[in-house]
C-alpha cells in the first residue's frame, strides 16, 4: 500500500442526497400541476407566456453573473422557479414584453443585486408582480377561461381581451359571485384570474407533493389559509352565509398560490417553527385586512411582501427554547438565553 495523499476535511464526511437543485426541481414538478390546468383553461398562450417568463429569468440570471464574472448559478434552477411563479401571477393575456420586464426586476433588482439566491429579502416574483401593477391596463384584464380551447387567445399579435370580472371583484363589493362562478369552478379553475392562480385544487395538489417530498412543512400554508378562513368566517360581508363566504374568500384570487408557493419561499420566510406560524398568521391577517379595507380587491401579494420584510425580526423573537433550560427560565432571563 503506497502512501498517497488522502483528502482531509472536517466532519461530517457524508451528506444527504438532496441539494439546492433537486429541491428546486421538486418545486418545478409541483408547479406543473397548476400549469397543466392553466393550459387547459387558457389555451396554449398560457404555455408561451410561461416559457417567455422562464426564459427571461434564466437569461437575466446568467447574464448578470456573467457580466460580473461570478460563477454561474443557472444550474440551481431557482431562476426557473422564479420564472414559473412570475408567469403564474400574470394574466394570460399580457403582452410578451411584460414578463420580460418582470423578470428583469425579479432576478436582477430583487435577487442578484442583494447577492443572489438566499440573500434577497423580498420574494422576487411577487415584488416583480407588484412592480408590474404600474401597467394596470394589462395587469387587471383577465380573460375568461375556455376549457379545451387551445387557441382561445392568439399566440401572436395584440390580444383582444374580453375581460371578465374576477371572483374577488364580486367579493370586494360584499356579494358572492355564485351566479357567475360557483365553488366548484373556483376549485377547478374555471374563473378568470392570473394564469396560475385559478385552480385551487391543482395548487393544493402541488402543495401536497411538496409536503410529501419534505420540501416544505405545512406550517405556513396552514397558518395562512387557516387565518384567512377563520377571519372571513367570523366576519362575512354583506348578508352571505359565513361558511359560504369563507370558502369563496379562501378559493378566490391568488390566496392558495400565495400560501402554498410564495409564502413558503425559503429565503423570505422564517426558519424557526414559531416564526413560521407567526409569519403565516401575519400573512392571513394582512390579506383579509387589505381585501376588506383596501382599494384593490387582491391582498395576497402585498401581505406576503410586508411579512417578508419582517422575517429577520420574526426569527429573532422566536428562538427555540434552549436545550436544558426550562421554558419559564427563558422568560425570566431575557436576551434569548445568554448563560
Amino acid at each position: 500500500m503506497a502512501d498517497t495523499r488522502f483528502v482531509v476535511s472536517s466532519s461530517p464526511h457524508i451528506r444527504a442526497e438532496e441539494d439546492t437543485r433537486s429541491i428546486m426541481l421538486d418545486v418545478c414538478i409541483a408547479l406543473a400541476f397548476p400549469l397543466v390546468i392553466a393550459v387547459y383553461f387558457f389555451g396554449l398562450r398560457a404555455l408561451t407566456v410561461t416559457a417567455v417568463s422562464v426564459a427571461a429569468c434564466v437569461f437575466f440570471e446568467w447574464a448578470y453573473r456573467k457580466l460580473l464574472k461570478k460563477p454561474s448559478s443557472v444550474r440551481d434552477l431557482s431562476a426557473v422557479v422564479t420564472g414559473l411563479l412570475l408567469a403564474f401571477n400574470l394574466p394570460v393575456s399580457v403582452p410578451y414584453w411584460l414578463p420580460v420586464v418582470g423578470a428583469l426586476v425579479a432576478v436582477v433588482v430583487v435577487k442578484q443585486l442583494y447577492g443572489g439566491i438566499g440573500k434577497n429579502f423580498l420574494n422576487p416574483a411577487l415584488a416583480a408582480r407588484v412592480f408590474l401593477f404600474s401597467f394596470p391596463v394589462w395587469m387587471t384584464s383577465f380573460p375568461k377561461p375556455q376549457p379545451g380551447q387551445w387557441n382561445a387567445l392568439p399566440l401572436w399579435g395584440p390580444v383582444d381581451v374580453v375581460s371578465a370580472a374576477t371572483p374577488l371583484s364580486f367579493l370586494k363589493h360584499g356579494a358572492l359571485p355564485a351566479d357567475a362562478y360557483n365553488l366548484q369552478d373556483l376549485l377547478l379553475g374555471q374563473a378568470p384570474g392570473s394564469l396560475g392562480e385559478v385552480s385551487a385544487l391543482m395548487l393544493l395538489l402541488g402543495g401536497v407533493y411538496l409536503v410529501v417530498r419534505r420540501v416544505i412543512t405545512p406550517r405556513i400554508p396552514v397558518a395562512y389559509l387557516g387565518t384567512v378562513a377563520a377571519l372571513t368566517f367570523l366576519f362575512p360581508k354583506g348578508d352571505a352565509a359565513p361558511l359560504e363566504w369563507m370558502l369563496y374568500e379562501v378559493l378566490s384570487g391568488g390566496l392558495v398560490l400565495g400560501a402554498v408557493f410564495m409564502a413558503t419561499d425559503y429565503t423570505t420566510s422564517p426558519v424557526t417553527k414559531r416564526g413560521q406560524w407567526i409569519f403565516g398568521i401575519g400573512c392571513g391577517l394582512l390579506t383579509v385586512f387589505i381585501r376588506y379595507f383596501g382599494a384593490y380587491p387582491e391582498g395576497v401579494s402585498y401581505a406576503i411582501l410586508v411579512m417578508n420584510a419582517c422575517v429577520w425580526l420574526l426569527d429573532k423573537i422566536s428562538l427555540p427554547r434552549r436545550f436544558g433550560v426550562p421554558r419559564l427560565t427563558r422568560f425570566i432571563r431575557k436576551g434569548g438565553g445568554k448563560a
Partner: protein
Amino acid sequence: MIFPFQGGVHPEGHKDATRQKPIEPLPPPARVVLPVSMHIGAPCEPVVKVGQHVLLGEKIAVSASPVSAPIHASVSGTVAAVEVCPHPNGGRMLSVVLENDGADAPHPDIRPFGSAETLTAEELIAVVREAGLVGLGGAAFPTHTKIASGLGKVDTLIVNGAECEPYITSDHRVMLETPEEILGGVRALMKIYGLESAVIAVETNKPDAVETLRRTLPRRGDGVRVAPLATRYPQGAEKQLIRAVTGREVPPGALPAAVGAAVFNVDTVASIHRAVTTGMPLLRRVVTVSGSAVSNPKNLSVRIGTPLRAVFEATGGFREQPFKIIMGGPMMGVAQHNLDAPVVKGTNALLAFSRGEGKPEKEPVCIRCGRCVSACPMRLLPVYLYHYEQKNMLAECERMRVSDCIECGSCSYICPGRLHLVHSFRTAKQKLREARKRGGN
C-alpha cells in the same frame, strides 16, 4: 420503543457490510506506537526508557492529574523509542514505541481482582482507574473521572448501545458476543453508585442485540432493562440519550450528573467487567473496518498502538485507492492523512472511502431552507450562527449559543447548499476561547 429527542437526521446505515461479521482477533504487530494521550484530559509522562524490556499490561506512562488515564504496554517487548509520532487526531504526539517480542508475557502484578460482589465501590473505582479505561464510544473521557463526578448524585444509569453513526458495528458485535460481560460491568457500576436499576439503550436497527441482551438478563441482573430506541442520529449523543430515556435535559455546560444520570458506552461497561475479573488493563479494542474502498470489511479486536496501515492490511487491503480515510464514523470521525498513526483507545472504526462517498462539495450556498434548524438536536439556529461566524461577529455567535453545539454534524449533513456548518461553529468556538484567554475573563 422510546422516541427520540427533537431534531436529528436519518443517514443511511451502511452497517450490513459488517453487522454479521464476528469479532476477529488481529495478531499483534511487530511494533506498537502508544501515544502518551489517548483520552480527553492531561497527557501522561512516560515511565520507561529506551531499551528497557516491558511486559504485557505494564504501565508505560502515567499522570498524577485526576482527569487522565494511564497507558499500558499492549505487547511485551523492548522500548524501541520514546519520540514524537503521528497521532490519529491529526497532529503529532510523544509516543512510546515497543518492539514486540511475540511472547505476550504478562506483567506479574496482573491477576484477577475477583468480582463486583467481592469488591467495595472504592476498590472498583481504583480498578477502573488502574486499568486505564476511557469511554470507548469515541469520546475517550477517563472512565474513573466520569464515575467520580457522579458519585452520590446519580439515580439513573444508562448504558449506551445506540451506536447511531453509520457503518460502525463494533458495539453491536460486543452486545451480541459478550452480553454477560456487559451485564457484569453494569452490576459493578450499580454497586459503585448504589443503584437498584439500570437501562441498556439500543437503537431498533439492532433487534438481535436487543434480543440477546434480554435473553441474558434473567440469569444475571435484576433491575436491568433493555430499552429499544427509535433509530435516529445522534441518538447516542449523551445529552440526547438522557433526554430520550429519562425526559430530562442536561443544562448548558453541566455534566449528566446534574440531572442524576450517568451514561457509559456498552464496550466501556464490558471492559470494566474484564478489568475486574481478569486484572488485565485496556490493551485491545474492537474496531469496525469498513467503507467502499475496503476489500473485506470486518470487525477486528485490535491491540492498541497498532498502526492503521496494519489494520487495513488485515482486511485484505484496499480494493481501490482510497480517497478519504476516517477514524470513527462518517458524521463525527476524524479524517486521517497518515496510515502510520496508531489505533488509540477511542478508535471504534476505521473507514476508507473511494471517490463518490463524501466527495468534495461545490461552492456552498445558503438558501435559508431551515433544514439545519429542524435537524439541530440542541435547538440552535445554524443558519444564523454560520452567517455571524462568516462575518466574524463572535458576540452574536455567543448570544446565539454556539457553545451549546455538540458538533454532531446533523446540520452539515442535511444542508442542501453544502455549507460547512459544523466546521464554522468549531472555528467560532475556537475564536471565542482565544478571545476569552486574551481578555482574561
